């Protein structure tokens, strides 16, 4: 019996399932169960009046209706989210690429200096947010002090509905540049030397080499990075919360911040999880687009 079982587990055509079992159990407990529970919460009335009850009233899609239609804030906050995400992806890629391209050049201490740039990335977002809140302070902040030398007068960064979003984007871009830099660096060093040499012999200028050789070769990395940046931007909550708490007047409230406020300030778990599920659906759509248009193509090209 024992020998049979041993054979079934370690040496049969079903062995692969047994090997997957630990991972499946883990994913089940920590990914699928929370997802299903989130869905359960989002279609029930779960707030302080019903939280400790055994049967919470089923309300169908009412929570979704409330946040999308009745609250009247969905379009504004969705717009904020779009601005936040798109700006982050754009600036993180461009600046990350610039840093990576600069530090792959061989000069003294280029590796050590690249290491220094990474320090920013290992700092917790809450600390980064607090530091940036002081940098952006209208009166005693460093940024306004620096800007005063070029004749720009006092900007009330985080106290203005127009500038606050720019402020949190700057902080978030700063926080994520090192990650972009590292991934782009590894793509850059993997470009075969002979391709670069061949293009140099053919007389390509450095700009042509960048445009025609380097960028096409690291495109798969850039695409994957763009998707990661989108997903990471949705995790900008900690940074925004420590800088503005979504204010002034919702101007820096993105969907995850709203979800947090509904869940943990108003204890309206139904609405909070409805928002969380909307975020999930958006991210799944983005990931599917990425897989459909970029992953297969990438394989086809490289094979």
């Amino acid at each position, binding site marked *: 019996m024992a020998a049979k079982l041993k054979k079934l587990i370690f040496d049969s055509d079903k062995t692969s399932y047994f090997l997957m079992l630990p991972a499946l159990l883990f994913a089940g407990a920590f990914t699928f169960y929370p997802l299903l529970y989130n869905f359960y919460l989002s279609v029930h009335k779960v707030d302080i009046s019903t939280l*400790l009850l055994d049967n919470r009233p089923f309300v169908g899609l009412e929570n979704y209706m409330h946040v999308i239609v009745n609250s009247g804030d969905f379009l504004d906050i969705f717009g904020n989210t779009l601005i936040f995400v798109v700006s982050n992806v754009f600036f993180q890629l461009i600046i990350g690429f610039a840093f990576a391209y600069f530090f792959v050049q061989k000069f003294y201490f280029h590796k050590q200096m690249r290491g220094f740039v990474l320090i920013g990335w290992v700092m917790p977002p809450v600390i980064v947010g607090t530091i940036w809140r002081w940098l952006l302070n209208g009166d005693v902040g460093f940024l306004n002090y620096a800007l005063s030398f070029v004749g720009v007068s006092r900007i009330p960064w*985080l106290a*203005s*509905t127009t500038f606050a979003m720019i402020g949190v984007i700057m902080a978030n871009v700063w926080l994520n540049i090192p990650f972009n830099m590292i991934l782009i660096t590894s793509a850059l060093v993997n470009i075969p030397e002979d391709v670069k040499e061949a293009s140099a012999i053919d007389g390509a200028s450095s700009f042509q080499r960048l445009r025609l050789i380097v960028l096409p070769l690291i495109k798969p990395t850039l695409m994957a990075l763009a998707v990661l940046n989108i997903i990471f931007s949705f995790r900008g909550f900690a940074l925004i919360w420590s*800088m503005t708490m979504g204010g002034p007047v919702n101007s820096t409230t993105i969907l995850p911040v709203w979800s947090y406020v509904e869940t943990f300030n*108003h204890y309206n778990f139904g609405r909070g999880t409805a928002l969380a599920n909307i975020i999930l659906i958006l991210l799944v759509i983005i990931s599917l687009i990425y897989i459909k248009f970029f992953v297969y193509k990438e394989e086809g090209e490289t094979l």
Partner: protein
Amino acid sequence: MKKTILTLSILLAFALVFTVTPINAETITFWHMFTEDDPGTEWVVDQYHAEQDEVEVDVRYVHFSEIDNQLMRALTTGDVPDVVITGSDVFAQWSSMGAFADITDRIEEWGYADYYYEGPMNSVMWEGRYYGLPQNVNALAMFMNVELFEEAGLDPDSPPKTWDEVKEYAHQLDGVRDNVSPIGFSATADETATFQFLPFLWQAGADIESFDSPEGHEALSYWKYFVDEGLAFPEVLSTPQWELMVSFAAGNMGMVVNGPWGLVPLEDAEFEYKAFMMPVHEDVGVPYSVLGGENIAILDGSDKQDAAWDFVKFTQREDIIEEWTGMSARIPGRMDVAQSSPYWTENEVLKLFTEQLEYAQPRGPLPNWAEVSSPIQRMIQEVLTGTDVEEAAREGQNRINSVME
């Protein structure tokens, strides 16, 4: 053989670890939101342990911005602490959802309910029953930088008493020194904005059901005036109360709206300061303030409620509550203690706060106060960033009404 010795030593190690805890003492868990090294809290627990050995208190500090979330998590999992301290503004939320134990009978048997301030005592009541006791109470009043007052040619002994006088004084203080803001208040996108604004709303003769009235508009315009005229930093929108006080203590402000906890950053101040009463609106004439503070409660889910009550009752004894709050620059919920102990009668600032407390009104009590407060915060921020006052008040009132039903 080697294996046996190893197994035995591991077993022995486990046995040692688990026998250290004494079996005869009952351990209760106590969550508080004061700072990690709060001198009063440390003292009160030490004192309790010194006086008896039946109950042991396991103290856990939770940051005040996290304690409600931690409590909510504890309630949903059922693994709750035995005693907790939480804000009086959200207290009704917990009592209404059945989180706290009904201690009405215990309080009546104990017989000290009449010794507390009335407003705070209302905040621990839900549907006529008691669910806790006020640990400390506070209110907002105003502080002045005496040095700056004198430089501006103002008499620090006659602080501004009316809305107009506050405006006049602020103008006088304007430009006395570089980078000095005449007046400071806090309107961050959380409960702080509501807390700091409500006194002015009440002073104007409005309340949270009448933002969209001439009185409500006037209150909103009053704050807007200081920001528009450059008498208050636009950063009032992103500066929490505590940081505001740190800034005042650094000499960057002429007057500031703050609470008794402001004395802590002021310990390092290199100038003389004074506290004074909230101003009155000429038409109403009452220096209203807002009631803050924290209540202590026993969790309904606790299976050691008798031990928990023993500890709670101990903390509320005259000599204990006096030290607990006095050491940490707070004001006790027990009015008899606040009005007789030298902690509050001999400290000019705290004495003023015990007087200001007589005009302090509670928020709510409403079970969904946080949800009601949200549109108020938004309205204040809208007005301070340039939205038309009447428009903001109208929309804000609609939002408030929709969550009040």
